[in-house]
Structure formats: C-alpha cells, structure tokens
C-alpha cells in the first residue's frame, strides 16, 4: 500500500515537473558528437548540433535547397564570375559578445584553407585565391577560376571569431558562433545543452530558452521517450520506426525527400569492375523498386546520381538505359566482357539495419545474373577502414547528399578526388567535372551535369539505389518545427513548446 502511494506520488510529481519545463526542447539523437569545431567536424551528429544553431555561414540553404542570405545580407558577382562581393549584416555579434565583421570572415576562410588546420572543408573553397576587406561590413572574394558552387559551399563554412584562426582545440569543446543558440554545457555521454542567445540579431528569436540534444543510443528508448514527452523531436528516424510512430496519437511524423541515398560501391581498380560493361551489367541486374519495397518499407524512390530533391538538376531515371531490370541483357554483357559465371565477389555492408536488408536483396538480385556475392557484415570501424583503404570488391552503404552537384561529384568521381575510394579515373568525366564547376551559365551548367549523370548512372563506380524518405518525429506539444531535406535542424529557431 505504501509502495503504491509512493508510486502515485512520484508519477504526479514528474507529470507536474514535465509541464513546468516548457521552454526546453529535448532532442534525442543516437550518439555523442565528435567534437564541435565547425571547421573540423565530419560526424553528422556534430554537424546537426552546431550548423545553423550555433554557427552561421555567409549564405544559407533554405527548405527548397535554394541559396539564401545568411550572415551576408546580399552579394554581387562580377560578370566574369571571378569576384564575389558580400555585404555583411549589421549588428551581428558572437556569443562572446564581440561584434562580427569582415575581419572574422577573412580569418574564417583562412582558417579553413590553412594546411595546419587540415580542415575537411578546404576543398569546398579551394578556388578562393584572395580575400579582400573593403570595409568592416564589405568583403570581396577573388577566385582563380569561375566556381559555380561557391555560394552553396559558403553555407557550410561557419564564421568564427578572428582570434580562433590558429586555435585547433578551443572550438572543439566550447563553440562560439553567431547563431540563435549558444553552447551551454556538454555532459559527456549525457547531453549537450544550447541556450537562447540573447544577443541574436533578431530580438524575437529564438523562441525556445534551451535545446538539449540527449544522446540515447537505444532506438526503443528514443521511441518511447518521444511518446511520453521526455523528448520533443527524434530527427532522422528509420522507415520502420516512422511507421510505428505514425500510429501514435500524440506524435506527428514529418517527411521529405532525402538528399542522402543508399548505394552499391564498386572498386574500379579491381577486376572485374575495371570494365565499364561489368558496372553497367550490375546496374541492369538490380530492381530498385523491389529494394525500396523490401528494405525501406516503400519509403523511397529509385534515383540516379543526383537526388530527386534537387529538382533543378536531377534527371529522371527513365533517362538511364541501365535502370530497367534486364537479367538476360546483363548476362550477355558479362559474357561480352569475358566474364565466366558464377563470378564470386565479396560485399562489405555498413552496419545499419536498412543497409543490411538492402544488401540481402542486392545479393539475391545479382545471383540471378551469375554474380555470387558473399556479404561481410562489418563493425563501423572496420567498414570505414576498408572504405578508406579501397579494400573492397563491392560495398553497400548510405551517404549524405549535397545541395550542388559539384559538391558531391567532384570529390567522388574526379580521378584522385578526396572521397574517390573507388579509384575511378575517366578522362571524359574529369573534363566534364572541371567544366561543370567553372561554368556559371545555369543552362550550360545543367547540360554538363546532364551528360555526367547519364554517364555515371550506368558506367560510374556507384550504383545509386534509392533516395529514402527523410522522417523526423515530433511530439504534438512542439510547434514550429519544419523538416529540411538536408536533415539540418534550421527551423529550431522558430520552435515553441505548448504549455
């Protein structure tokens, strides 16, 4: 009896406590971030926390994936596409209270470009040759060649205080940006807390007092916690969880076409994938819709090298001749390439439920054409190591996408590109990639990327499978959240919690 009374008292108290903490939003994510320096981080959870919340770039990407003003209120581009002059917003301050001006922008660009920092973002602004401060609120970038994706790239380059230019450690633990939320506390293994930045340039924003990113590795716990109101938002949930949460009355699942995609990677430096005919045959053996139905619960669409979310750029899959499943045609092509079946290969699998399921279906589909694949389910560390060392015949993985074709294509498909682990090197593709980044006329640029997509779809080292549905589950007490195809939490600035 006493125990029962105690339980009732505890429940009542915790319910009352839940109602009082109205202006704190708890977001459950699966793991801790790997550092917080915006110029060094690569892990998605790090980016999710810092970009757009703590830091801002000169430009930003809106919900429709268009470039919009960020810390720069406007910009002019010279006719030859070689100089960009940015007008900075007035009255912007860093969280430490210092004013943000052109000095900070110049220092941030130098910081990303410096060899000592070894920033993974350096290649995004490699064509920026010179940065000139015109006045405290005007800055000019001079390029060494026209570089069409520069405005998209700059959205990902956070502006940090000038005195951080050579500091490699401080920002990893205590970030200092101009964004709507400022870093407050990092309890290792527990949470990261961001609080409202009172000096934000728009006095009415953000609407929340605090955002806490809770690290909750157990998927069932995240799911239950959302229903109980312990967590307000679960970003980037998998299709199976999305289906379950849709049935829950106090939860809304927001969905959008995902920029990220699942893929089969082929090692173009290893037999038999040195031959483009084999790469084409592999594509012909795949049935992408079956993969989506079987592994993604129907939540996705077949896609080529660019996400259908990039409506300005992506070609329809009907444009790709190898995308209609044709087992006999694939067999004939393999025979033409001198391949005797059964062909035995291995396929490394990224340790995620959806990629494991996809790998099994791909294995079955390839077997129909005489390609016998042994699946190697790997732990993440081993997977990354083999990926980095190009130690694979095939792999199944999931990649984040980019908002401009160049940002994805150049590093992935250019001979010697920074993520070209496939060791793919094609003279025609290299030329087109260079032309694509230097061309500033939109129609001409589109023609180049059309040509590239057509070639890469069937003969490139990646068989793009599906662009999933990006789902974020939101407790109904949370208002103002909007999902972005990039997966970023840019709309947190407008979020409120109902009393």
């Amino acid at each position, binding site marked *: 009896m006493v125990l029962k009374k105690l*339980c009732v*008292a*505890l*429940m009542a*108290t*915790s*319910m009352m*406590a*839940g109602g009082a903490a109205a202006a704190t939003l708890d977001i*459950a994510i699966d*793991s*801790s*971030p*790997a*550092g917080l320096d915006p110029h060094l981080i*690569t*892990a*998605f959870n790090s980016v999710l926390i810092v970009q757009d919340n703590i830091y801002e770039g000169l430009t930003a990407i809106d919900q429709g994936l268009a470039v919009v003003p960020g810390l720069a209120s406007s910009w002019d581009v010279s006719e030859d596409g070689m100089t960009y002059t940015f007008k900075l917003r007035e009255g912007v301050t860093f969280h430490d209270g210092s004013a943000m001006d052109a000095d900070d922008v110049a220092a941030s660009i130098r910081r990303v470009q410096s060899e*000592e920092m*070894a*920033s*993974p973002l*350096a290649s995004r602004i490699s064509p920026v040759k010179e940065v000139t401060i015109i006045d405290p609120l005007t800055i000019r970038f001079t390029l060494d060649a026209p570089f069409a994706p520069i405005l998209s790239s700059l959205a990902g380059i956070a502006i940090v205080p000038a005195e951080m230019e050579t500091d*490699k*450690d401080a920002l*990893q*633990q205590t970030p200092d940006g101009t964004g709507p939320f400022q870093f407050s506390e*990092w*309890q*290792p*293994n*527990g*949470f990261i807390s961001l609080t409202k930045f009172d000096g934000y340039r728009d006095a009415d924003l953000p609407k929340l007092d605090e955002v806490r990113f*809770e*690290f*909750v*590795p*157990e998927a*069932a*716990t995240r799911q*239950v*916690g959302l*229903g*109980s109101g*312990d967590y307000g938002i679960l970003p980037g949930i998998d299709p199976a969880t999305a289906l379950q949460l849709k049935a829950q009355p*106090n939860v809304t699942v927001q969905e959008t076409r995902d920029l990220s995609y699942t893929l089969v990677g082929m090692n173009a430096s290893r037999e038999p994938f040195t031959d483009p005919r084999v790469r084409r045959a592999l594509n012909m053996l795949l049935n992408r819709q079956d993969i989506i139905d079987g592994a993604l619960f129907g939540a996705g669409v077949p896609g080529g090298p660019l996400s259908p979310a990039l409506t300005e750029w992506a070609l329809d899959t009907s444009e790709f001749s190898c995308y209609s499943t044709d087992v006999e045609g694939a067999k004939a092509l393999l025979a033409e390439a001198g391949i005797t079946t059964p062909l035995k290969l291995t396929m490394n699998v990224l340790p995620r439920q959806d990629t494991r399921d996809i790998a099994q279906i791909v294995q079955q589909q390839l077997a129909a054409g005489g390609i016998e694949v042994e699946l190697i389910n790997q*732990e*993440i*560390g*081993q997977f*990354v*190591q083999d*990926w*980095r060392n190009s130690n694979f015949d095939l792999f199944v*993985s999931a*990649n*984040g996408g980019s908002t401009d074709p160049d940002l994805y294509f150049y*590093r992935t498909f250019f001979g010697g590109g*920074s*993520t070209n682990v496939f060791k793919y090197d094609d003279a025609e593709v290299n030329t087109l990639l260079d032309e694509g980044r230097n061309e500033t006329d939109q129609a001409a640029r589109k023609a180049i990327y059309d040509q590239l997509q057509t070639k890469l779809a069937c003969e490139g080292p990646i068989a793009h499978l599906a662009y999933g549905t990006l789902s974020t589950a939101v407790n109904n007490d949370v208002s103002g959240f909007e999902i972005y195809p990039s997966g970023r939490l840019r709309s947190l600035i407008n979020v409120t919690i109902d009393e």
Partner: protein
Amino acid sequence: MTPRFLLSRLIDLAFVLFGVSIIVFLMIRMIPGDAVAIMLGANTEITPERIAELEARLGLNLPIYQQYANWIWGVLHGDFGTSIWTGRPVTSEIAANIWPTLELTFLSVLVGAGLSIPIGAFMASARGNIAEIAVRIGAIAGLTIPSFWLGIVAIFMVAKFAPGWSALGYVPFTEDPLGNLSRMVLPVIALSLPMLANLSRLVRSAMLDALGQDYIRTAKAKGATKRRIVYKHALRNALIPFITSVGVSAGYLLGGAIVIEQVFAIPGLGRLVLGAISERNYPLVQATILVLTGTFVIVNFLVDMLYAAIDPRVTR
C-alpha cells in the same frame, strides 16, 4: 586478521589492476578500425594530412609499447589521459558519469539484498506451502528473465499506461529528489530482481541448513518461539555466506548496470564505456574499465576483510 593477510591481499589487488590495465589497453586496440577512422567516418573529405595530424595529436603514431608506457606513467601520476572526442580529462568525464551508476548500484543492492532476507527467511520457514512455492517460482523467474528485457517491457508499459511518468534519463537527487526517484524506480527494479532472486534462494538454503543444526533443536527444546528461532538463531548464522554473496553480486551489478543504463538512457559509467568503445575513445575506455574493475576488486577486498573479521579461520 593478521597484517600479513592484509598486505598479501593488497598486493593481489595491485597485480589484478596492473594486469587489467595491460589487457584493456591491448584489447581495445585489437578491435578493427581506429579512433581516427571512427572520428572521420565514411564519405567525408579526408586528406592524408588530416589523418596524420589527428594521429599525431592523439599519440597514435607511436609504437604501442610506448603508448602504453606513456599512459601508465600518467596513471601512476594521477593523469588518466584526455578524451579523444571532447578533449577533456577523462577523470572529469568519469566523475560526471559515476554518480548515476553508484546510485543505481547502491539502490539495487539495497533493494535486492534488503528484501532477500525476509523473503528467504519466509521461504525457509514456510517450506512446502502454496505461498512459498509461488515465491520460489517467482525467484526462478527472476533469475532467468534478463534485466534488459524487463527494462524494455517496463518502459513500454509506462508509455502505454502512464504516459506522463518521466521514466527515462537522470536527474541528480540533490536537484530534484522526486524526479530522481521517479526515474530510478524502474531501473532499480529491473537491475535488482535477479540479485533478489539469487539471494533469496541463498538465504533460504542457508536458513534450512541452519534450522537443521543441533543448536536450533536445543533452542526449540528450551521453548523458544518459532519467530525467535528463525530470526534470532538461524538467520544470524545464515548471514555469513550471504555477506560474501552480496559483495560478489554488487560487483556483477556494475556489469548489469551497463545494459540498464543503455535501456533507460541513464548517463552512467556503463553507457560511458559502451559509447567509448564504439568511438574507440582509448583513454576513456581504459580509465573507465580500470575504475569499474577497481571498484569490483575493492568491494571484494572489503568483503574478504569483513568475512575475515567475522570468521578468523579464513586468515589462517
């Protein structure tokens, strides 16, 4: 207890910790995929310079024996290293995460050990009747049901039947006592149940053993009440193996806490070490395992001391 006995146990303790430090150091490095690979991940723009810079900064470019020597030298001087991911001293990360684990373990021992005595005594004194059989079946179920399963079922039940109950995460007792307890109820039940079942059975068999002894017969002959015989005479003697068992179980609870913390999103040492292993956060894994092992060994050492104090024969 002789000083020689005490000294020999202290030397054993030091050797165990030294051995563990070597095993942990080597094992975490034998797992494929190093810290740099995990930090940088797949599909990111990784330059060889960035990899080399990170390896040098983390000291991973040194030969393994030198890495161990540097680390153990630091440990002997109170420096357990720096977390690879946060750049903070691992001691501060352990300190920030140790309280939830200690509280969870302490409360579980309190519930598990505390309730096992009356339950075990009841089972012994009421042997064979229906209530005792029901409790015994319950004890077997408690031993066989995994804690994590019980935990997951519990949180789903809460979500279904008491959706307003904040059952996940951790709030320090000093900040919000009721909030703390409301979050601790389910994990403590899940964690303590196997211990309760085990110790109840132990108390029962020790009591049955004690109740068959000559001195109990003498007490009965002298007209002592049943209650006095059970609780005064038999229970007292049955507690000697019980104390040893509580010590060992407390150590194992630390292991169980790892899983329970994961299920209930409690930021304790268990979750810290699991996360650190998957992130290849070498200094954090090494230090946390050393602390967990040290706690286990020290608890057992204290139990040995207590046992030796109760029964001096063990020191001979």
